[in-house]
């Protein structure tokens, strides 16, 4: 049996330390942007979140491939949790992006901008993952169909990203367009620490969710085992609901 809780404490500590360091760098070390001023600080949160969320979707697709190849349910669980945490990150990307857009462009949303719309399409695509998955009752079919969805949608993410990079931008900047990201060293260092912190946070939350799911599954198995007819008495365990 896989123990997902192993190393969770160390990972959580590393995440908190890195996040704190990242925030200190953002507000006390990184210089103000000459063009945007203080509002550019959102960049250090928004862009790492977007990159991690999109990568998480691709990871979910790769894990789904592992499930389809091996038939082992744990890969499906990994894929599900990866997508789940990435969807939460995507919500944060959309909200922080809208706030930044309002401050920079004067609008909460610009429908003509391909970067924004493409990310919204990816988010909505993955938002349909949950009803699609839970509309299927049979666990085997549910896992298989969800994996096919994750693979298809996961393949769409890099294609979509490439398509957006090739289109001319209206207002959204093309970040990391050069080898060093077009950033001065102090900004680049801050950005990389922020990226590391957000990636660590993603991994920690995935591990946390997997640990909770594993514990819940073990409790259910224990409940079923205890619910089996006892040699000297009736069942004393309430049936599972749902």
């Amino acid at each position, binding site marked *: 049996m896989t123990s997902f809780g192993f190393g969770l404490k160390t990972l959580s500590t590393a995440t908190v330390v890195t996040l704190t360091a990242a925030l200190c760098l953002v507000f006390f070390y990184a210089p103000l942007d000459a063009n945007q001023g203080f509002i550019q600080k959102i960049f250090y949160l928004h862009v790492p979140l977007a990159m991690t969320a999109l990568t998480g979707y691709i990871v979910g697709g790769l894990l789904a491939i592992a499930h389809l190849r091996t038939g082992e349910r744990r890969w499906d669980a990994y894929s599900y949790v990866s997508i789940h945490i990435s969807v939460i990150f995507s919500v944060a990307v959309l909200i922080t992006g809208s706030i930044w857009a309002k401050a*920079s462009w004067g609008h909460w949303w610009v429908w003509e901008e391909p970067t924004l719309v493409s990310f919204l399409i990816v988010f909505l695509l993955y938002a349909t993952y949950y009803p699609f998955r839970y509309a299927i009752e049979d666990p085997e079919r549910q896992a298989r169909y969800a994996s096919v969805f994750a693979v298809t949608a996961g393949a769409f993410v890099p294609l979509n990203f490439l398509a957006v990079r090739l289109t001319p931008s209206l207002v959204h900047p093309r970040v990391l367009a050069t080898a060093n990201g077009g950033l001065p060293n102090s900004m680049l260092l801050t950005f990389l620490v922020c990226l590391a912190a957000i990636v660590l946070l993603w991994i920690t939350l995935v591990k946390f969710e997997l640990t909770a799911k594993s514990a819940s599954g073990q409790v259910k198995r224990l*409940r079923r085992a205890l619910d089996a007819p006892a040699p000297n008495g009736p069942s004393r365990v309430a049936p599972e609901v749902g």
Partner: protein
Amino acid sequence: MPALPLGEAGRYVAAAYIVFLVLIVVYVAIMAAKLQRIERELRELAGFAETRQNPVPTGRPAAGVRGVDPTQPQTGPDPNLAPPEAVGGPGATTRGAPDV
């Protein structure tokens, strides 16, 4: 657009970081609720398992139990001899593990 003054930009930056923080806190709160439920179920199951290992006798208790004087004739049916359904449903005599 020109850069916003620090005071106004600060509000937007604070809003963005607070949104992120709130999302994380809400997620952690939901996970905490889940873990509490799992812990409660585990306590319940541990109680069941302990009761299984040391089953409580369900037959007639020893004389003197529940204040019944064995020397006096009983005026009604002995509740300990009644079927479980009559005193609280099936398995009522063994249901309900104590909460720790």
